[in-house]
């Protein structure tokens, strides 16, 4: 009973904060809403006995990635630099497409089939603790996908490095190019 209530609360908050994140006017408030969303995602992981994933969700997404988003938001003065043209000409057309997508997604739900039960039942995971179970599976059964993911991340890292270095070569020898107008407009 408690678990169901907790799940309902988390699901509700995820939907609500997701909606607020795309509808609020101030970009910093939007990022905060995403923070709330990530928090409740971590709560969902907890209901699934995946406490390691929950902690990593908060450390990586909330603690690192969102902070970087905030950083970028503060450095860019949004009013002047971001002017997005509408993707579709009419707002109602967009709404109809979105509603169609939602109906499509709902229609697919009955096709969902529960998979076979593996050897890691809830009791088995609880016995060896989630962190250990995850680590063992990751580094034995799923070693190859893990290494591939690691390689992709390494490529992305090197790409970021190359881009950053080229930027520096373009603007002289690394003098801070930011003007003094940082973020005054953002917080209004």
């Amino acid at each position, binding site marked *: 009973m408690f678990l169901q209530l907790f799940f309902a609360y988390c699901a509700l908050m995820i939907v609500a904060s997701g909606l607020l994140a795309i509808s609020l006017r101030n970009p910093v408030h939007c990022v905060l809403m995403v923070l709330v969303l990530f928090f409740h995602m971590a709560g969902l992981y907890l209901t699934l006995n995946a406490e390691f994933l929950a902690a990593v969700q908060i450390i990586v997404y909330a603690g690192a990635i969102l902070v970087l988003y905030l950083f970028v938001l503060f450095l860019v003065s949004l009013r002047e630099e971001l002017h997005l043209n509408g993707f579709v000409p009419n707002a109602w057309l967009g709404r109809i497409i979105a509603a169609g997508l939602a109906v499509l997604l709902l229609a697919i739900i009955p096709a969902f089939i529960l998979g076979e039960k593996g050897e890691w039942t809830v009791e088995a995971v609880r016995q060896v603790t989630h962190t250990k179970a995850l680590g063992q599976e990751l580094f034995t059964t799923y070693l190859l996908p893990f290494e591939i993911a690691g390689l992709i991340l390494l490529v992305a890292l090197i790409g970021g490095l190359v881009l950053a270095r080229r930027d520096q070569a373009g603007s002289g020898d690394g003098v801070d190019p930011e003007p003094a107008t940082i*973020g005054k407009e953002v*917080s209004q």
Partner: protein
Amino acid sequence: MDILLMLLWIVILVVVIMLHVAYATYFERKIIGHMQVRLGPMRVGWHGLLQPIADGVKSFFKEDIIPENADRSTFLAAPIICLTAMMTALAVLPFAKGWVLADIDIGLLFIFAMSSLASYGVVLAGWSSNSKYSFLGGMRSMAQVISYEISMGLSLVGVMLLAGSLNLSAIVEAQGDRFLGMYLLPQCIGFFVFFISMLAETNRVPFDLPEAETELVSGYSTEYSGMRYAIFFMAEYIGMMVMASIGTVCFLGGWNGPFPVPFFPPLWFVLKVYLFMFVFIWIRATLPRYRYDQLMGLGWKLLIPLALANIVLTACLKAILA
């Protein structure tokens, strides 16, 4: 009934921690005073013993000023985010055998998660105040916390490898009650990295750039007054205590001491935490502030590679010896 008992424990913990925060400020002022050949607070009570209480009452009754152009809701929420995140981290700290509110398997990760959330409070305070000094303080804090969180997390991986667990009680148990069992010696590189990152994470001297008073007035907390300023202050001191406790648990053998204490089992834990606090204050009285680029260089070019090397070395040694 269980819930009531739990609530009682929580209330006791909160009260003790608040008193600790109050007297940690007294401790700090006294020690710095004597290190600078002055007396420190002397007026309120015997040797100024009631000074923290007087300060608390004063900040409680002060006017709460909110700047006109501030982003109101964020401005009000920022100190609360800071304090809540820091206080939540207290729940998993084992003060003595069995003296822990929530003995969870991912204790160490939980503390990291909470300390990374506390940085949101600082960043948002800096942004929502809508003042240049606050904003610069918030930006500095953000960059500093992101960089030093990495080296801090990596420096503790060695401890996790040796203990084979993320549960803080299990880490203490794994070190045993012998002097040589402490991870201080086998993890000396890890401890070095951890200690420096700890200073940077808690925004203490010599890394107190987010609130460098000679450059930024008071950094992110410039626009805060009264109780809200006091909440930031509390969060900072609880943060210091949480970091000192992680250091105690992971490197100094937690609650274990040379002999068991009969009536108050957490005595050794408390003494070790206060040793850390004393070193914090000692460093504050001794060292000048770092320059910002030096701070970043130290974090990325020295501490992170050192911590990575420590992980590889520990893993190899453990694989060979086991």
